[in-house]
């Protein structure tokens, strides 16, 4: 944005012209409107082949020369604005003789225009808190020093915009009763004058009678003795008061019960505590805290944190030993011990067979039983020539490549096969004609050959990264923005029936998985979104997807999601996988080591669409997740550099599954003849019949199987 330092009337005229042309508030935050739009006449004229300007060119001004030694002077050079404040920067170019040089173009811009806008006249408007730099510059002439692309003169103005004042504070989530001798955590809701709920404001608490209730200085409240007191919360100049009446604690004793006295590492033991009065009746609203202490197994040296208990009473141990869970309410406490033994789920994973692909990268896989009763797999290729490979995996010890389909694409990232095993869909990215979309294949007779039934690219030309087949419909991602639903009831003539797109700013979808008429999408910052496409009873259908709920987490790494109802508990979980490469390595050079990934599996308890809750994680340190699969309460995770991981996810899930000894086994597909030798980069797993198949980016298709350890007493490292 520019201010032309001309005589005041012209400057004013330019400002007015600017305001009128952009028709935007002063800040001109996001995107400016076109200055003008062609009219009908121009269009008609153009159709006749006689193009015509729709505007006349603005008068060009002769720019004055700027002598050496001139300086750009901007005032003020720093200032403080409250949110909503406006101010004007004055700027001029002054020669070394001290004279102002008129008619010089001075450009203004803000390095954070969402917090601070600036217009061509140097007028500022503060929109949000922060430290923002405004730049004023004078372009150089083309004849000036050409060796750098930079302005002739430049000044930075630092603008401080403090947080808006707090409008209100309120103490929330207070219990219905207050009992002497107990302790309460306090929670406050702070709102500033811009109606933003703030969590970065110090809140202090006080009590009018600390002999009744006394803040502990750590955000909690000690209820000391029966009586009345006024509790006050203060945040900046705002305060909130509430009268509380502390009653005598009627509790005579606490009782603690556990769902089990013996369990394994990783098992969730449910503790319940209740305060009882002298009549043996439960005391309502009694704040009870759970604590855990224990002695890990003597064979475990320096065990670290060995167990946890959450305040809902869910206990889980990472190490074997004897633990004591204690419930505390005021002066009353009660304990219950629990014995934890090692989980002992580990198995060996042995190599069975490999369909080697070492001249290009392998992407996803799908394994299915063919209509002829044999077993087949299809794999995609990445950054190559658009191939999908079809394998006979009936004998996993001897995986045989039986066909290859080549489409116009550089990457076939995803491959899926219909429930009846007759139709496959492969995604296309990097098509030479940039049409992309997906291709439907007839895989009903793989031994005879796989043939292309149809191609579908309408409105999918930006690339289809992932697909899913469910009930004769293809759910295909479009350009990373939405999923489209395409009927393949007649696979030779696919047609679109619906689509779903989030409305959040900057949304981006990465994957879709459909189970029982509910689609689960993975959306980076927007996390996992559940959508009814006919199975949730919320009015959804393939042609009318209806959002059910969503769950996002702070990293914004959500890349995959696998919905799963636990066979052992009936609880419904979504296992959300990350994808992240935060170490700045791109590592596509086949001669070099592959990049390192990060991220883990987030376990989301989602029995209520509106109340998903992240309850557990499976995280392999120093490695990162890609795709996953869950079957029979066992999770299979492609962990990129961390190889294939097999994890026991039976029972209720809480805490850190990796540290709980739930990992059944791991397999690192080292291959000296791989595209990148001996560099596992596992892409996707699929358990199938008695084997586990997985694709590896550098080495193709693998088959392995679990087996009991050769020496069950052999311990690598320490027991759990």
């Amino acid at each position, binding site marked *: *944005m*520019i201010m032309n330092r001309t005589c005041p009337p012209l400057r004013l005229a330019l400002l007015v012209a*600017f305001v009128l*042309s952009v028709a935007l508030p002063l800040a001109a935050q*996001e*995107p*400016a*409107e*076109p*200055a*003008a*739009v*062609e009219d009908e006449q121009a*269009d008609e004229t*153009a159709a*006749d*082949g*006689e*193009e*015509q300007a*729709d*505007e006349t*060119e*603005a008068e060009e001004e002769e720019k004055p020369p700027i002598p050496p030694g001139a300086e750009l002077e901007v005032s003020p050079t720093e200032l403080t604005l409250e949110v909503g404040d406006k101010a004007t920067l004055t700027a001029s170019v002054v020669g070394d003789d001290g004279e102002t040089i008129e008619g010089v173009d001075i450009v203004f*811009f803000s*390095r954070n*225009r969402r917090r601070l806008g600036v217009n061509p006249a140097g007028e500022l408007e503060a929109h949000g808190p922060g430290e923002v730099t405004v730049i004023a510059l004078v*372009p*150089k*002439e*083309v004849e*000036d020093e*050409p*060796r*750098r*692309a*930079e*302005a*002739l003169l430049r000044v930075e103005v630092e603008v401080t915009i403090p947080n808006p004042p707090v409008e209100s504070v309120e103490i929330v989530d207070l219990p219905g009763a207050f009992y002497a001798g107990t302790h309460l955590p306090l929670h406050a809701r702070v709102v500033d004058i811009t109606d933003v709920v703030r969590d970065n404001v110090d809140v202090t608490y006080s009590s009018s009678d600390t002999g009744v209730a006394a803040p502990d200085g750590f955000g909690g409240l000690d209820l000391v003795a029966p009586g009345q007191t006024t509790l006050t919360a203060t945040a900046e100049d705002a305060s909130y008061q509430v009268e509380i009446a502390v009653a005598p604690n009627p509790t005579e004793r606490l009782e603690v019960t556990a769902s089990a006295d013996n369990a394994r590492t990783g098992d969730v033991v449910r503790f319940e505590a209740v305060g009882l009065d002298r009549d043996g009746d439960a005391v309502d609203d009694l704040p009870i805290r759970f604590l855990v202490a224990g002695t890990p197994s003597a064979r475990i040296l320096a065990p670290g944190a060995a167990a946890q208990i959450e305040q809902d009473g869910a206990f889980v141990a990472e190490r074997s030993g004897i633990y004591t869970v204690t419930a505390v309410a005021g002066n009353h406490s009660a304990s219950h011990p629990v014995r934890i033994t090692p989980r002992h789920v580990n198995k060996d994973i042995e190599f069975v067979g490999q369909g080697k692909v070492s001249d290009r990268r392998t992407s996803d896989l799908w394994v299915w039983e063919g209509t002829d009763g044999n077993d087949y797999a299809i794999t995609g290729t990445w*950054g*190559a*020539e658009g191939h999908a490979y079809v394998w006979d995996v009936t004998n996993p010890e001897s995986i045989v490549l039986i066909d290859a389909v080549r489409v116009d694409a550089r*990457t076939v990232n995803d491959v899926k096969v219909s429930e009846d095993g007759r139709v496959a869909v492969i995604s296309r990215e*990097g098509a*030479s004609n940039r*049409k992309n979309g997906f291709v439907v294949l007839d895989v009903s007779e793989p031994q005879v050959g796989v043939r292309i039934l149809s191609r579908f690219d309408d409105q999918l*030309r*930006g690339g289809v*990264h992932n697909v899913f087949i469910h009930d004769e419909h293809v759910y295909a991602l*479009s*350009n*990373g923005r939405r999923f489209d639903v395409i009927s393949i009831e007649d696979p030779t003539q696919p047609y679109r029936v619906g689509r779903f797109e989030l409305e959040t700013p900057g949304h*981006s979808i*990465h994957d879709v998985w459909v189970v029982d008429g509910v689609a689960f999408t993975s959306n*980076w910052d927007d996390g996992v979104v559940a959508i009814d496409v006919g199975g949730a009873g919320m009015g959804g259908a393939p042609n009318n997807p209806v959002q059910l709920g969503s769950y996002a987490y702070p990293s914004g790494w959500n890349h995959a999601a696998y919905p799963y109802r636990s066979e052992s508990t009936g609880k419904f979980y979504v296992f959300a996988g990350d994808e992240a*490469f935060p170490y700045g390595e*791109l590592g596509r050079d086949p001669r070099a080591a*592959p990049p390192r990934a990060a991220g883990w599996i987030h376990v989301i308890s989602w029995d209520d669409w509106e109340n998903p809750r992240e309850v557990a994680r499976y995280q392999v340190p120093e490695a990162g997740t*890609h795709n996953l699969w869950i079957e029979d309460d066992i999770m299979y995770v492609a962990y990129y550099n961390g190889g294939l991981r097999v994890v026991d996810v039976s029972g209720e899930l809480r805490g850190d599954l990796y540290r709980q000894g739930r990992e059944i086994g791991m397999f690192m597909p080292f291959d000296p003849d791989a595209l990148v030798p001996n560099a596992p980069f596992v892409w996707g797993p699929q358990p199938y019949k008695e084997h586990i198949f997985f694709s590896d*980016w550098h080495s193709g298709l693998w088959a392995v199987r679990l087996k009991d350890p050769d020496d069950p007493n052999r311990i690598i490292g320490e027991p759990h």
Partner: protein
Amino acid sequence: MRVPTSWLPPRAAPAAFVTAAALVPAALVPGPVRAETDPVPPSREYHAYVCAESEDEVALIRFGPSGIELLKTITVGSFPAEIEGPHGINISAGGRHWYVSIAHGTPFGSIHKYETGTDEWLGDVKVGMFPATLDIAATTGLLFVVNSDFYGDHVPSTISVVETSSMTEIAQLATGTMPHGARLSRDGRKLYSVNMMDDELVEVDALRFEVRRRLKLGAKPGASAAHGDHGDHQTAASHGGAHAGGAVEPSWVTPPTADGLLYITALSGNAIYEIDTGEWKVTRRFDTPAGPYNAAVGPDERLLVVTYKKSDSIGFWDLEAGSEVARLATTRRIPHGVAITSDGRFSLVTVEGIGGEPGVVEVYDNGALRRVARIDIGKQAGGIALWEAN
């Protein structure tokens, strides 16, 4: 890898040329090739940074007396397991930095800054949907990139303005549907871009960051009224939502000449438009083979070299005469970008290739009107910028 240059390649092969010429009406077949000389080896070296869009690589190549050579490849992007698509590339005045647009993100693309020579990554900034062509003003250091949004719903998109010293997006202005091509005037005060799906040229005030003028480009009589999708080299297939105007689909605009003339390629209109920025009107229109896509004007402002994306050839135009003086088939399919050396002697052309084929950089002698060198690079060669190392 070094590929020796053949200084006596066959002239524009008659058979190949006939094939290309047969694609256009007889009246459009150009006149005799006016090759002035046999190719003369270069007396100096030229360097170019070239995008390989389906490889997520930028190649640094050297062309000189000893031939053409791939000096190195630089992997670009942020996600090793996703193809992110480096599309546009340019080098700042003085040659200290190169900038590349990374088309795909989650969902927004980005601009990455590197130091020339060391090719050290210096920073990046998120911009809009599918950023493509970019240019950097020598007089301000500001970078302008079109957010082409090739695959969106054909709604108006934007041009981002980036302060290159801090790699901060400082403005984003709506310009039109599928903006492509972005070239600044030499003084850095005006930016020219074309909206492929609006069939218009836009002049942006590069100091105020606002659209200053628009010019509608009309189709020649009889042209299809439907737009193809970007890069559709096979057919200008209809697309839902295509506007009701003629199918010009302007895809590139050259920087203004000293006389204020711009040259615009019309990907679906099969023409080149000459625009007088002073008069703000079309002064000439040249019919071309199918799919003129990128173009470059030589330093003498007489030669225009055009890639014909849908015809697998390039054209050399005499701007004074307004005629195509030579048309040469490329060695692979889908020619894309073109850059002319600062001495005007050579044109470097990128060719995408099909599927798993390597991309190609081809070098043409602008005097002899012959291809004198070629070298394979990563898949889908696209944006190209000459680095005049100082």
